[in-house]
Every structure is written in structure tokens, then in C-alpha cells.
């Protein structure tokens, strides 16, 4: 997995690529939490369009990001979910807990 970060207005966009699994989810968790706590963006946007697979530890990292965002009054938004990513969020019944959009425009517009 590769992580790179962009800032746009008051949003921070994380562009992720590759699979997210237990080999790299701790790194994802750390960079998302650090960004939220240090920069307090109004929205945190996770671009998953180049992510094929997410395991439960990746989902857990996203849940932690969501909670940290809520604590600071930021929004936490996902977009570009692959079939596999959608499936794991669905079967964990977390898909409705996150704000999920199709693409970057929607994620930044709404």
C-alpha cells in the first residue's frame, strides 16, 4: 500500500493504492490519526479508487479515523470503493456508518 496526502481548501485527501491488510493498516491508522489531530481538517477524504482489497484491520483503522474525526467535529468521507471494499463494509454493517461517495467531485462537493 502507498499513502499520499493532498490538501484542498479545508479538506485533506488521502490517496491510497494497493491492498490494505495487516501488513500496512497500522501505518494507515497512524497517518490518518496524526493528520486529523495535528491539522484538524474540516473533512478527511479517503480515496480508495486504487485499493483492491481491505481486511478487517484496515476497516478498523478507518473506524478509528471516523471516531477521531467526530471527536473534533470533522467529516470523514470515503470514495471509490472496489467491490471487495464495499463487501467488507457491508458485511460488517459499517457501510452506513461512513459517508460514502462514488468519486472525488461528490466527496468534496456535498
Amino acid at each position, binding site marked *: 500500500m502507498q499513502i499520499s496526502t493532498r490538501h484542498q481548501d479545508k479538506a485533506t485527501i488521502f490517496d491510497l493504492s494497493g*491492498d490494505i*491488510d495487516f501488513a500496512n493498516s497500522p501505518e494507515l491508522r497512524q497517518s490518518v490519526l496524526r493528520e486529523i489531530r495535528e491539522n484538524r481538517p474540516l473533512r478527511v477524504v479517503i480515496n480508495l479508487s486504487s485499493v483492491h482489497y481491505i481486511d*478487517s484491520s484496515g476497516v*478498523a483503522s478507518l473506524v*478509528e479515523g471516523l471516531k477521531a474525526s467526530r471527536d473534533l467535529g470533522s467529516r470523514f468521507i470515503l470514495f471509490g470503493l472496489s467491490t471487495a471494499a464495499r463487501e*467488507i463494509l457491508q*458485511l*460488517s454493517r459499517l457501510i452506513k456508518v461512513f459517508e460514502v461517495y462514488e468519486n472525488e467531485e461528490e466527496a468534496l462537493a456535498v
Partner: protein
Amino acid sequence: MKTFLRPNTSNNQEREPGQRGSLLLVMALYSNPKWLSTVRAAVERLTATLGFKEEHCRSVTRALDEALTNIVRHAYNNRHDQPITMYFRKVQRKQEVEVQYGIEITLCDRGPACDATKWHGRSPGEIRPGGLGLQIIHDAMDIVEFSRKGNTNRLRLVKYLGQAGLAP
């Protein structure tokens, strides 16, 4: 000295239906999460070759990935140098008149003995990190069975194909 578990040395049950099933593949590796993606790639292809539909190739792959992660985290306490062996078998069962084929994946580790009846994940919908792995495994597989034999923990995962038979 680190030891890989040995693949089964006997596969002569190939032609006895209802028996242990025929061995297709053994994979042995160490408990470093770095290798998870290699195992996923292999099992996603293997299940496709056996005729599972894409959705089930993905869910069986996910179940195996989660089961391996649990071994790394819980059986080996995040040590990366411990042995894990996986046996992939083609199995079958009689469902009324038709024979259903399936895949059996047995994961073996040398972690401490533990009481699997006490393992429990989260209740669905609960918003907390963690506790999702077991749910994913049970959701994907028809049989999930833990046992201990000697100093080896075995997790047996089985998924049968639906109506359509397994590709021969």
C-alpha cells in the same frame, strides 16, 4: 530452530468420497504479515480454478486472510518468525442425490493451546475497531472448526459450491 510443519505425506484417499479429500496444494511460510498478499493471490486463483464464482473466490480469500492474521496476532502474539502451514484439499459431500464439491483449507500453527469456544468477535453493527475477523470467516465458510492435536492448532475451513458442480 525453526520448523516448518510437514505437508501430509499421504494422499492416497483421493478416490474415497466423504473421506479426507484430495490434497491440492500445501503452502508453508512464516508468520510475517508481509506474505499475506501472496497467499491471497494464490487462493483467489485456486478457488477460481476450482470453479467458484467470483464473489465466493473473494469471500474465501478474505476468510483465509483473516484467519492467518488472527494466527499472527493472537496465536503468535505478533512474532513474525513462527511457522504456519496451509493444506488445500478438494472435498465433497452428498446433498440428497447430488454430490457437492468444495474446498477445505486447514491452517496449522504451533501457538499455545487455547479455548476457541471463548473466541468472540463483535456484534454486527457495533462501531469499534476490531472483532470483525471471526465474523468475516463465519460469513464466508460453511464449516469453521478449531482443534488441537499435539502441539499444533488446526483451523479447518470448508466452503462448498452451490448448485453447479466444481470444474473437474
